[in-house]
């Protein structure tokens, strides 16, 4: 059996983690773990080395852009898709400059999420 692609979800909102997990699992991906802030994400990334990370921007302790930088410094091949509500264009641009693969806008649209994740994994 072909092994599933492993994804880590980073978001401080339980609602958003739950909705995103549902979408990714229906798309045939394995959600290997969830992290609730940037620090948590950084620690779990090193341990688990998922194939892709979905990274919320606005989080307590360490925000998504900072966590992205840490992860990409450790692993320059890391695939990170940024997640945010509308109105965070500046931070999105900063994240893309720091190596984010793409971004997804909240609220989640199932098709858009799967299309974005699929395209990033093909790169």
């Amino acid at each position, binding site marked *: 059996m072909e092994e599933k692609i492993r994804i880590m979800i980073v978001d401080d909102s339980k609602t958003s983690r*739950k909705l995103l997990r549902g979408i990714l699992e229906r798309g045939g991906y394995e959600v290997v773990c969830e992290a609730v802030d940037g620090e948590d994400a950084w620690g779990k990334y090193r341990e688990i080395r998922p194939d892709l990370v979905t990274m919320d921007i*606005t989080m*307590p302790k360490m925000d998504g852009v900072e966590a992205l930088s840490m992860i990409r410094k450790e692993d320059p091949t890391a695939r990170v898709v940024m997640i945010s*509500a509308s*109105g965070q264009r500046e931070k999105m641009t900063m994240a893309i400059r720091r190596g984010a693969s793409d971004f997804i*806008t909240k609220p989640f*649209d199932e098709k*858009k999420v799967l299309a974005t994740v699929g395209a990033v994994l093909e790169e």
Partner: protein
Amino acid sequence: MIGYVLGNYLVRTGKITREALSDILRKMEDSRAQLGALAVSEGLMTPAQAEEINLLQAERDAYFGDLAVEEGYLTPEQLKELMKKQGDPYLCCSKVLIQEGILSERELGEALEEMRKEEGLTPEQLEEVKRGAVEKLLPGFLPEEAQDYAPLAGTVLRTVIRLADRNAYPGRGEMCERFPERRQVHQALVFDGGLVDCFAEEEGGLMELAGIFAQEEFTDLNEDVMDAAGEFLNCANGLYISGLSRKGVFLELKMPSAERSAHDLVPGSLCSIPVYVRGRSLRLVLAKIAEEL
């Protein structure tokens, strides 16, 4: 939508009972097609184009039809035609009221005019409300001191209508001394001072809103409800600030929080507006943050 607004007016003034109203609203429910679905079934847009517009609405606080014209998928004439086919929400509602023998055409006309005066709407605003733009009620529903909250409250309300309940509608806002007692979630929109808006529970509306958004059946007002409400507020405020940024005004969105006293507020700036989601109320409270010295 207009059925609810007018229906509530009729209940309040004793012209119909609450039971009669729910019956009428049930008959009206879904009698109107969504504009996107109609455009596709009429062969004017492809499903992919309709979907693209739906996605665009996640980033822009604008109507489907207006975005479709802007993207060049519909001509203004086609949009007009479609809206005619879709049917005026007011016509749908008046048809039911008259058919059910609840009001005669004349009585309905009079009731509508009384409502317009009572709600402080201009005839033009009433026309927009009849076409379904309930956020146009807001200026008339807000006290004098709170008029400048209308754009933000309008975006929040439109987002509730688009993402949670297309029949959601506002009530009359009032100035208040402090935030409500019930559970609530706040978010600050900051720019040399700024604004804070808040969703607070009232009669189950917050739980309804959170449940629809999180796709969950909530039975008590727990952390999960507040988390979903906070994410919802964040999406609505995000649409508001991205609209402003296109006009060259930049605001920063803080993290949603349950903290009531996180900011120094401008005294006397709190305004509380009831919002009805699936017929149950929550409170949208807005206030100004004092400029930091």
